[in-house]
C-alpha cells in the first residue's frame, strides 16, 4: 500500500541528488571582489580561464565590508579582493586569510550629473548647504576614503550634513548621481566607466588619499593551488596590464 509512495519518494531523492551533484566539469574558484573591480576582473576572468580551461571563476561582487562580513561569518570563498586595508584586516581577523598584498591603487574623483543641477564646480561646493551629496556608507571603503578626503579639505562637518544617502558600494553612488537624483558623489576614477561616462561630469579632487586594493587567498579554500595561481597571475604582468587598461594604477 505504501509502495507507490516509496517509489515516488525514491524518484524525488534521485532528482534531488542529481540537482545537488555538480556535473563533472571545471572546478569553481569563488572570488569575492570589491564592486569597483567588476569590469577589470571580468576581463581578467576571461584571460585566466583561457589559460586554465579546468577552472571556472565565479565572482561575488559587493562592497568590501559586505564581503569581509561574509568571510568572518564563514562563507566558502577561495580569494578575497578588498578595496581597502580595513576590510582586509577584518577578514584577516577571522584567521582564515593567507598573506595579503596590494595589487592596485586608484584615485578619488568628484562626480556630478551631466547637467550639474547642484552647480558643483569644485570640492568646496560640497560644503554649500542644500547640495545633495551621496557617499558610500562610513564602513564601505569608498565611503571611508571619501570621508578622509573631506577631512583633508577641511569641510567634513558641512559636507557630511549634506549627505542624503549612504550607499552599500561605490556603484550605488554612481547610480544615484548618474540618474540625476543626487547633485554630487565621491567615487574612484575607475568607476566612471564607459557605460555611465556620458551622464557624468568628473572633477579632480586635490587630496592625498590613495585607495589601495589588496588581495589574499583563503587558507581553508577548496582549491589551494588554483587560488594561489589566481593571486599570482593578478599580481603578474598580464593581470597588471588588464587592471591598467581599466584605469587602475600600479601598487
Amino acid at each position, binding site marked *: *500500500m*505504501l509502495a507507490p*509512495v516509496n517509489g515516488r519518494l525514491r524518484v524525488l531523492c534521485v532528482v534531488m541528488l542529481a540537482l545537488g551533484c555538480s556535473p563533472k566539469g571545471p572546478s569553481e574558484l569563488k572570488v569575492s571582489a570589491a564592486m569597483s573591480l567588476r569590469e577589470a576582473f571580468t576581463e581578467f576572468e576571461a584571460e585566466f580561464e583561457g589559460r586554465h580551461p579546468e577552472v571556472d571563476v565565479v565572482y561575488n561582487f559587493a*562592497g568590501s*565590508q*559586505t564581503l569581509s*562580513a561574509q568571510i*568572518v*561569518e564563514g562563507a566558502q570563498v577561495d580569494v578575497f579582493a578588498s578595496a581597502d586595508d580595513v576590510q582586509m584586516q577584518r577578514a584577516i581577523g577571522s584567521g582564515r586569510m593567507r598573506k595579503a598584498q596590494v595589487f592596485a591603487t586608484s584615485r578619488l574623483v568628484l562626480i556630478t550629473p551631466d547637467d550639474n*543641477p547642484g552647480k558643483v564646480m569644485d570640492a568646496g561646493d560640497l560644503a554649500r548647504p542644500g547640495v*545633495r551629496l*551621496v557617499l558610500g*556608507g562610513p*564602513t*564601505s571603503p569608498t565611503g571611508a576614503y571619501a570621508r578622509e578626503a573631506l577631512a583633508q579639505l577641511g569641510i567634513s562637518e558641512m559636507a557630511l550634513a549634506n*549627505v*542624503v*544617502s*549612504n*550607499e*552599500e558600494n561605490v556603484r550605488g553612488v554612481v547610480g*544615484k548621481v548618474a*540618474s*540625476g*537624483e*543626487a547633485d554630487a558623489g565621491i567615487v574612484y576614477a575607475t568607476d566612471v566607466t564607459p557605460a555611465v561616462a556620458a551622464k557624468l561630469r568628473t572633477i579632480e579632487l586635490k587630496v592625498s588619499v590613495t585607495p589601495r586594493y589588496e588581495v589574499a587567498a583563503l587558507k581553508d579554500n577548496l582549491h589551494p593551488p588554483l587560488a594561489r595561481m589566481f593571486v599570482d597571475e593578478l599580481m603578474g604582468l598580464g593581470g597588471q596590464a588588464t587592471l591598467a587598461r581599466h584605469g587602475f594604477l600600479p601598487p
Partner: protein
Amino acid sequence: MTGSSYRSLRPGSPGHAHVVLGLLGGAALLFFVAPLVGLISRVTPGHVAAQLGSPAVRSALWLSLEVSLVSLAVSLVLGLPLAYLLARVEFPGRALARGLVTLPMVLPPVVGGMALMTAFGRRGLLGGWLAEIGVELPFSTAGAVVAVTFVSLPFLATTLEAAFAGVDPRLEQAAATLGASRWRILRTVTLPAIRPALAAGMALCWARGLGEFGATITFAGNRVGRTQTMPLAVYEALNTDPEAAITLGLVLLAVSLGLLVALRGRIGGR
C-alpha cells in the same frame, strides 16, 4: 456521510493520510521556525538592551513606525475606495486595473523603486511639477512613505476587494428598500460586513510596510533619521556588526509577529 464517501473513493485508512499530512505540515512549520530559533540563539538580553539604548537604532525604529503607520493611513484612504470600485463598479478596463493593483506584489521591490524614480524622481515624469510645488520625494521621509505605500497598498486593496465582492447584495437591497441613502448603506451595512477583512488587510499592509526594504533604498536612499528604516538599518549593520544586525532583525521580527498574531488571532479565531 461525506466522510464515508471520501473513504470509499480513496482506499487506505485515514491514518496514513494523517501521517503524510503531519510530516509535510511539520516540515513546513520547521522551515519557518528554524530561522527564528537561529536568530534567537545568537542574541542575549544584554544585546537587545544595548541595541535598544542606541540612538541610531531608536531613530530607525521610530522612523519605521512613523513611515509604516503614515503609509497605512494613506493606503486606507486610497485603498478602500479603490477596492470598492474594483469589486462593485463596472467600468471599462476594470480587469486591467485589477492587474495593475496586484502588480507591485509580484514586482521585485527594487524594480518598484526604480519605477517610482522614473515617475516621481527629480528627472521623472512628474518630477518637474513636484519640484514646482515644493515637493522633493527622493531622500526624504515622504519618499520613504511613497515607496512603502507602493509596495504595501496592494495587500490592503486586494483583501478588501475580495471582501466587498463577498458582501451579500440582498443586505444592501434590504437597507435600500427601507429608504437608506447609498452613503448610509455603505456606513451601516457594507463596511461593518467587511470589518474582519479590513482588520486582516490592515495587518498585512502594515506588516509588509514595516519590512519594506528594496523600494525604499532604491527610491528614497539610505539616509539616517530620514529614510533609514529598520530593514535598512539591519542591512547596514550586517556589514559592520552582524551581532547588532541579528538583534535589530529580531526586534523587527517581534514587532511584526506580535502584530500579525494579534490581528490574525482576532479574526481567524472563530
